[in-house]
């Protein structure tokens, strides 16, 4: 009896305890099915915008009667943003992009651990994971590094992460920009044939659809300077030959409505084919009574004086009691974390059809296929100018000067600038094209960003540099 008892105690005590502790302590989930991987990938899209780079461009100026914030001023004055780490800052952008990448990597690891399942589904998931990983690294590289070209490609890249982090502190090397681009290209090219639209909910536009992937490739090769490939991937979206208007919104129609919110909703309408890829962004950047914005003057210079000699259908400005002016492109919605406070967010079209059109147009010009560029333009222009905006090469040369190719390039880049006002893309053009930016702040002090300027690579966030990431040279 006694012995039995002791034996029982010994058994209870030393065996079976580990199973007992295998019960999960709360509602946490595990990644065990392809659906789980698919759900992980829903989180593989960064909620941070790069819109803060808009405040570094020549699209904005000081608006003295706006509310001023240090972190906006830091952007405007081309100094590192250290006073704020929340939404619309480089820190937030850095953290969230890498968070999206972590989800992609976790999804890929999850796929490796799951046997069986629908092969098509599995491939589609793998494709999406690789593509979103490539995309987020690409955006990081374009914000935090110099523009990719022969002169800069030996410079610093961004850490390219291909596996989940498993320990507390990990040191990362930035590598060269060339290495970063190679990795992006490798992931992207592997992903392109795998991506499938068959498994997405709704329109799938919150994810990388096939169209979105090709559109991204178009941007990638344009920024890389590989213009033929840019044309090739643009063609996969737009079709060969002259564009049709599927991927160009009718601005007259879109920019008409009773309120700025209604117009913005039309602008970002998810069911419209020209909105290729959308992401929900936690951002207050749409509050144009804050900080540095466009004013009537800038808008007039960019949009109103045109060689088309026509009213521009993008000419729609809203104001909020200050000199700031803005087109109604985004509608700030609000996510409540408490019943009175929370975070503003916008649904932001990350890649629009017009960008692919303009990417291809620019690539044609770069490859001196000026007629092809002009043909695309003349289709595009019918939906932008009240008069149809039709132009010929001589008219453009007359308007812009220089050689035909130079004039066409300047012309296309101006269309690009008009099209993407307040969407952040201007900054990348400033980097690509080595444009100088002059800013005068509310106190009248001038800040100049040179054509070739180290500050064109946004400084790595303080949180990263103090934790072992190499800072950009200054």
């Amino acid at each position, binding site marked *: 009896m*006694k012995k039995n008892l002791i034996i029982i*105690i010994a058994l*209870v*005590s030393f065996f079976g*305890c*580990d199973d*007992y*502790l*295998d*019960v999960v*302590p*709360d*509602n*946490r*989930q595990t990644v065990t099915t392809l659906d*789980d991987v698919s*759900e*992980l990938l*829903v*989180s593989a899209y960064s909620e941070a915008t790069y819109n803060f780079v808009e405040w570094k461009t020549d699209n904005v100026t000081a608006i003295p009667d706006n509310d*001023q914030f*240090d972190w906006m001023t830091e952007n405007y004055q081309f100094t590192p943003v*250290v006073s*704020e780490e*929340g939404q619309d800052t480089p*820190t937030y952008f850095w953290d969230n992009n*890498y*968070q999206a990448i*972590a989800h992609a990597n*976790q999804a890929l690891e999850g796929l490796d651990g799951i046997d069986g399942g629908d092969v098509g589904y599995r491939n589609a998931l793998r494709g999406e994971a690789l593509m979103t990983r490539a995309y987020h690294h690409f955006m990081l590289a374009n914000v935090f590094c110099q523009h990719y070209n022969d002169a800069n490609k030996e410079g610093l890249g961004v850490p390219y*992460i291909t596996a*989940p982090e*498993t*320990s*507390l*502190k*990990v040191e990362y090397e930035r590598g060269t920009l060339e290495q970063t681009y190679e990795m992006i290209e490798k992931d992207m090219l592997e992903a392109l044939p795998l991506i499938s639209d068959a498994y997405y*909910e*709704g329109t799938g536009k*919150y994810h990388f659809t096939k169209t979105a992937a090709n559109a991204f490739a178009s941007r990638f090769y344009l920024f890389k300077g590989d213009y033929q490939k840019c044309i090739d991937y643009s063609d996969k979206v737009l079709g060969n030959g002259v564009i049709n208007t599927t991927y160009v919104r009718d601005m007259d129609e879109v920019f008409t409505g*009773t309120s700025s919110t*209604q117009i913005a*909703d039309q602008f970002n309408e*998810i069911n419209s084919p020209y909105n290729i890829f959308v992401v*929900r962004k936690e951002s207050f950047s749409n509050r144009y009574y804050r900080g540095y914005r466009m004013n009537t003057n800038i808008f007039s210079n960019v949009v109103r004086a045109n060689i088309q000699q026509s009213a521009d259908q993008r000419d729609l400005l809203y104001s909020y009691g200050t000199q700031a002016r803005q087109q109604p492109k985004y509608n700030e*919605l*609000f996510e409540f*974390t*408490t*019943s*009175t*406070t*929370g975070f503003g*967010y916008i649904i932001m079209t990350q890649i629009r059809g017009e960008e692919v059109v303009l990417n291809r147009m620019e690539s044609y010009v770069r490859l001196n296929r000026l007629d092809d560029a002009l043909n695309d333009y003349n289709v595009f222009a019918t939906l932008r100018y009240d008069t149809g905006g039709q132009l010929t090469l001589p008219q453009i040369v007359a308007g812009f000067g220089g050689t035909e190719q130079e004039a066409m390039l300047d012309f296309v880049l101006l269309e690009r600038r008009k099209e993407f006002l307040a969407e952040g893309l201007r900054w990348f053009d400033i980097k690509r094209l080595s444009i100088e930016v002059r800013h005068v702040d*509310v106190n009248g002090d001038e800040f100049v960003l040179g054509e070739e300027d180290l500050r064109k690579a946004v400084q790595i966030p303080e*949180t*990263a540099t*103090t*934790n072992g*990431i190499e800072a950009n040279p200054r």
Partner: protein
Amino acid sequence: MKNNQNFYDFLLDFRNKTLFVMKCLSVFLVLFTLYSFTDSYSQSKKLRIEIREATLMNMIESIENQSEFVFIYNDEVLPELLKVLGNIQIRNKTIDKVLDRVLNKEKLIYSINERQVILNKKVKILDSNLQQQISGQITGTDGLPLPGVNIVIEGASRGAQTDFNGIYSINASKGEILKISFIGMKTQFITVGDDSTIDIVMEEDLEDLETVVVTGYQKIKRKLFTGSAATVKLEDVKLEGVADISRSLQGQVAGVEIQNVSGTFGTAPVIRIRGNASINGTNKPLWVIDGVILEDAVEISNEDISSGNLDTVLSSSTAGINPEDVETFQVLKDASATALYGARALNGVIVITTKRGKTGKPSINFTSSLTTRAKPNYDQFNFLNSGDEMSVYQELYEKGWIDIAGSNGAANHGVFSDMFKRIVDGDISWGPGGTPNYNYLQRYANANTDWFDVLFKDSFVRTNSLSISSGTETSRFRASVSSIVDKGQTIADDVKNYTANLNADFDLSEKFTIGFKVTGNVRDQRIAASEDRDYNALTGVFERNFDINPFNYALYTSRSITPYDENGNRQFFRRSYAPFNILHEVDHNFVDLSLIDLSFNTNIKVELTENLNFTTVLNGRWYKSNAVQTVHENSNNAEAYRADNPLIRNNNIFLFDDPDAPELEPYSVLPNGGFRKTTDFGLTSYYMRNQLDYSKTFGDLHTVSALLAQEIRSSERVTEKNDGWGYLFDKGGLILSDPNFIRFLDSRGEEYFDVDETNQRGWGMFSNLAYSYDSRYVINGTYTYTGDNRTGSSKAARYLPTWNISGAWNVHNESFMDNVDWLNLLKIKSTYGLSGSNPFDASAGLIVFGEEPLRPQAAEREVALLIDQLENGELTFEKLYEWNIGVESAFFNNRIGLELEYYKRKSEDLIGFIETNGVGGESLKLGNIGDMDREGYEVTLRTVNVKTPTFRWSSNFNFSHSKSEITNWEAQDRIGDAISRNGANLKGFPVGALFSVPFAGLDSNGIPTFFGEDGAIIQDLNLQERDDITNFLKYEGPTEPTFFGGFNNTFNYKNIGLNVGFSYRGGNKIRLDDAFFERYDDYSSLPGDLINRWSLPGDENITNIPSILSEIASQGLSNEGLNPYDLYNKSDVRVADGDFVRLKNIKLSYRFPKRFIDSTWLKSATASLSAHNLWLVYSDDKLNGIDPEFFQSGGVSLPLTRSYTFTLNFNF
């Protein structure tokens, strides 16, 4: 005389020893005591004696060594004892059998009284005429006569007992021995001499308790105990009328700091044993009740106890325990004492032992008390009166902050903006020339509303407790019930709390004992309605909506607002866009909380062999609470959801701005009814422990004891919240939910119901080995191995081995101390060991949770998995290495007791959030990132200052000092953290170091300025800055007290007793609430110092109170990016010392005289009058009377006010 007991005996004996407390003065008990004492458990102890050529003396030594028996004899019998009897070999016989066999009955007689065996020379029976009548009076140390005391003549069957006057008489011969015994008193032996009158004073037998340390799983003889622990009898520290026993420990035990952050029933005090061992952990001690770990119903960290959230009223582990059921507390402080709790013991352990049934006829105890509390008043605080408020409003008006347009769109109104609204409504007219209507305002300028008087009330708390204890030799029972009926301190709260406790112990055989315990607690509580506070990440402050906590309302509401209008009707002012009157709101918006807590315990004890015992403890506990918030359709809270007047509807965030209908103005999604919000908490916990105890004495000197135990536990918690929309309370619960409310919530990312389930499991194995040599040298080692399912699935993360080694030297037992009469106890002890904790539920594995990303298009909705925590394979438990050395001593016949302890602690692998480079995808990670050193000492001095037959004064003074230093902390706090109330954690500083912005005076516009780096004058500081923040800031001190303690005095004079207790603490700094701003409003109370504000140039030389800015000047500051007013509230002028001395309690008690008792059927009766929180003797003037312990957090928290209690206790 040596008295070596083995451990087993000790355990068994403990139960009998607990018979000490009852000072029952009853004749009924006499018979019982006669029998119970002659057959106590120890007498069934089986003895084993094997001695060659033994004398009786050898045998006595052997018995003394293997049992607790002590032999008492005088020189007359010595010759008999030294006679050689031959070889003795006796096995498994009880003491009487042994003695019967070996004693020469012709010459010696024996008697056994509990542990004492008295040997006497046999006296020839003398003629009865040689006997004389002995008589006298028997009294207690308090001089009270003791009725019912037993007087027995040793070796004879004659006995007597005292009458109601304590008088006895008995026939005895000279030389016979009188044995005088009484429950709870030390038994005395008196040899009859020539005197025929023998008066006897009996002393309380306190020894029993003080010789035992209950670590929850083990009971250890104090002299063999090597750890640091303090025993507190609840009876000595009990605060009459205070329902939560944990509060009574304040100021009682060195090293234990108790902070009463809220007086709301059910809210736990913050308890720290030897300071915080962790930086981010819960830092709460582990509660153990009768050998079972008491799991928290809701898991709340020390910091969150002060949040004022609804769940804080469930935070106290001890609120459901009837104080009358508690026998003792044992506070286990060092690693040795807490060793068996291994990976959960980081913050110390408090063990509660409850009362069990006692052998004897039913003994009934009834206690009833009545408590009343004082209302707070404005003298304790520093606010402007309504006349001065009005002059500030005038300035706000002149400076553009209050105007007619703004007022009509404003969310909240005070009297000034209300006036503008009335002008617009046409109720009143403008003043002359379009000025404000000062005639109208005059009434409010004179109002001086006393909100404390309006919202607090003088009501009573009635506490009743009834217990009955009874038992036979083999079974014992105790039952108790108690109730607390609290009519509420304010108009918004009340409590009814009931407890029941039933326990039964059965000795099924000599080797098999089984015990049961059932405890239950039921509570009905009404509390002020409020939503849980939320952290607003944008502003960095906690927000709480619709907070109608009366105390907060009284503190923060303008005194010019009136609760009633001229006609005596309730007057409404706008709040959250809707009409608001606090009295109306309290009637229409409240929370009813009900709670049921049931627990079953079973203890089984089996004696496997003489030296080996097996114990099983089983416990199951079911806890359910249900809080229902009634938000009546007529409440402000509900009306705010339909305040859609065109002037405000675009501002009112409680209206729905329908994204699918942009042409519509925001509209209400609560057109009808109010809310019925329920919050349910549930806990189901199971616990089992199996334990083997071994104990054996080898030879006479070597005692070995060992323990091997295993435990397994599980706690499942469920929290469920549900908001019912559109509930019509006045229509019998008709539900008219607007279909759009879900869309409204959906558009905001909110939910109308929420469920949270956790399942915590643990497993542990413990072993302990102790060896003592001759009771002089003790060495003790413990090894435990415990696992927790929350730390992840890898073995390395899941299990933590902890260990401990300790030793003690009982110096007073040394032979060289034999002649030192003045020293009763001198023990030196030391410990080194490791304990642990997993404070954050930090897991080493990947954690992903499901979520739904907010998307405006319904067709695009999908479910996401979000990584909550990346894998962190290196993550491990927090660890505490502790070295403790202590001295326990007692002098002059135990009149002075002094304990000194010194400890050095090293907390390692402390878990915190560390900022990463972000590249892995998680910018803040939980990791083992810190180490902390702490050292401290504790002094406890117990003295009996005066001791005469009628007067006794004893005191207990304790002092604890504790200092921490963070030696490694890889996270970097920001300036904003360092200047906030909780301070920052920085390497080289104590935990929670408070910093300030150094104030440099007001500038010529009355705007504050500060010293920046290198003495520059600044008005702007980046609160996000995290590098070298000490360059910018002034170090104020720790937020945690560096010293604390208590001083308690007890006076007894005849029937009267007086207790006076002080508690004190200090060395910490308190950040005052933010009080000064660029602008103010007309609905909040205003700080009294505002009267000295800067108003004219030149004032900067005479005042530190910043000016009220004009709207334009304020805009100017904002444009320049300056934040001087934010910094002012966080500057060194807004810091107070946390030091205080408090007269915590006074208790005057009166024991009813015998004359009175004799005429009733009572055994005793006591009446007492006590007062708590009577007087804050000292605190920093800067606090303006605000209690330094209380945290201003709103929600459900209430201050601990002054209270008076009248208590009656009857025993019959």
